[in-house]
């Protein structure tokens, strides 16, 4: 069944989009990530213009993170104060991102920049995760108990000034890295159309030593607002949010996420991480290939005077 997307201005198949949403939802339920980093490249492979894929991806992320954050709020595994400080940084980063986005679009380098960011970030995160999970898998096969990093260990981040107490996270830490992390995630959110969970979660755990049980809820909480803000700003400055497209992805996504969560319970943590790492790397390689393969058309047209 074909449907015409009003903003992307192309006809697409409804079932392909629902399936895409469900598949990504399944994976995001399984691995506990927002799925924005998968949705945006998938949309680009499906010939949705990158500018629209990014803005719509941000819109789609709101739905999954909102529903996830609700569960964590009920369970009390959400640190509002930490989330709030991250958010303050996020708004600044996101605003900067939107300006860079509009500038690159005017220069005709937006598509390239999005692809490069994806290749570099997904390649790095995927590679690190793969190495870590394969090591963990080997360790368990050899019978050794997996070594967990102890929280409460201090590093250079804990020597920075302007300390603040976050009770729910049992944390007393400088606001500088928290604001900085929020800003970085906000910037990526507006340029890549991702929630940033795949960077936020490891950063909170390894850099700030936030207890793992509050990390996901807090990260989801901040992602709701960052991506809501990103969506709003993209809608007003670039008019690139396609609600029809976003809704189809969300509808498939919320359904898929529930089954993914169930499936995820049957797999061990390091197996899950290894699978996710391979998936992330596959997306990165596919995007990288497009950068190096000679394009069928060297010339492209675009409207002049567009922001």
């Amino acid at each position, binding site marked *: 069944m074909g449907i015409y997307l009003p903003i992307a201005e192309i006809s697409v198949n409804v079932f392909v989009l629902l399936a895409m949403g469900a598949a990504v939802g399944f994976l995001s339920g399984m691995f506990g990530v927002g799925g924005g980093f998968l949705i945006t490249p998938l949309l680009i492979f499906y010939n949705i213009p990158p500018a629209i894929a990014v803005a719509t991806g941000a*819109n789609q992320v709101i739905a999954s993170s909102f*529903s996830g954050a609700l569960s964590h709020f009920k369970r009390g595994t959400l640190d509002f104060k930490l989330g709030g400080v991250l958010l303050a940084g996020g708004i600044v980063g996101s605003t900067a991102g939107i300006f860079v986005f509009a500038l690159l679009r005017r220069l*005709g380098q937006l598509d*390239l920049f999005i692809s490069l960011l994806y290749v570099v970030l997904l390649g790095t995160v995927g590679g690190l995760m793969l190495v870590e999970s394969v090591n963990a898998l080997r360790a368990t096969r050899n019978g050794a108990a997996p070594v967990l990093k102890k929280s409460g260990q201090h590093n250079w981040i804990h020597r920075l000034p302007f300390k603040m107490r976050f009770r729910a996270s049992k944390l007393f830490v400088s606001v500088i890295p928290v604001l900085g992390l929020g800003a970085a995630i906000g910037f990526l959110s507006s340029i890549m159309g991702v929630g940033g969970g795949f960077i936020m979660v490891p950063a909170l755990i390894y850099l700030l030593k936030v207890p793992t049980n509050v990390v996901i809820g807090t990260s989801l909480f901040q992602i709701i607002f960052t991506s*809501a803000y990103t969506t709003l700003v993209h809608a007003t400055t670039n008019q690139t949010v396609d609600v029809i497209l976003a809704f189809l992805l969300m509808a498939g996504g919320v359904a898929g996420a529930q089954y993914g969560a169930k499936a995820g319970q049957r797999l061990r943590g390091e197996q899950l991480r290894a699978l996710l790492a391979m998936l992330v790397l596959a997306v990165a390689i596919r995007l990288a290939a497009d950068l*190096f393969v000679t394009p069928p058309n*060297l*010339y492209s*047209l675009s409207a002049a005077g567009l922001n």
Partner: protein
Amino acid sequence: MAGPRAFAAAASLSMLFALSPATAQTPPAESIQIGLSTDAISITAGFSGADLTIFGSLENPDPLIARQGRYDVVVVLEGPPRPVVVRRKDRVLGVWINLDSETFENVPVSYSVATTRPLQDIAEPAKYKQLSLGAQNLYMKPADETDSPATIEEFTAALRERKAATGLYSENVGGVQFLSQNLFRATVRLAPNVPVGTHKARAFLFKSGMFVKESSAQLEIRKSGFEQSVFRVAHDYSFLYGVFAVSLAMLTGWLGRLIFRKD
């Protein structure tokens, strides 16, 4: 009372003609007229391209020339003019990057031509250049005229090639057919991505390779339906649209949890 006076006027007119024999022997000049059944068409969201039929007539054709088929008609449907940037990808450190670009002012977004015969059989190429008729002869004005002519030519050719590849510039040879000595029918193609706005339909009449007359009419193309309303709202009330998109996402997330709750 009016009768005799009108008769008198007609009589004196015919006398005038009689006085100048040259004019009297030349039949009245040919001209061309086109008519559109409507001045606006709405295309729906599922629009996948269509043929637009334009009817027209020759006025005062010379029966002899018409019989010999020496009248030719070229009909053009020209989309609204817009500035366009053409970019060229080049390899930098192995990566394909948009490097050079050229901006053109007032390039018609679409340009569909229908002709009685192939353009090269109708008139001399110079004629088309002069009339700026045909996709190959349209003058594309570069925004920066100081660029080298070779560069401008290269990007102009790329612009035409891209427009033709996306179906926005098309040529329908044999798309104009004479239904009688006076009446013709032209079929121009509307591409699936035909732009909205004011289009200009123009008909050019050629007699034995010589340009005789031109006639034009305007056609408004708009999109209709739900999708178009969404597009409108997204552009005219972009902030409210953004608020709606965010609320819709939160509602979907909340409903999804309600329906599929596992805890």
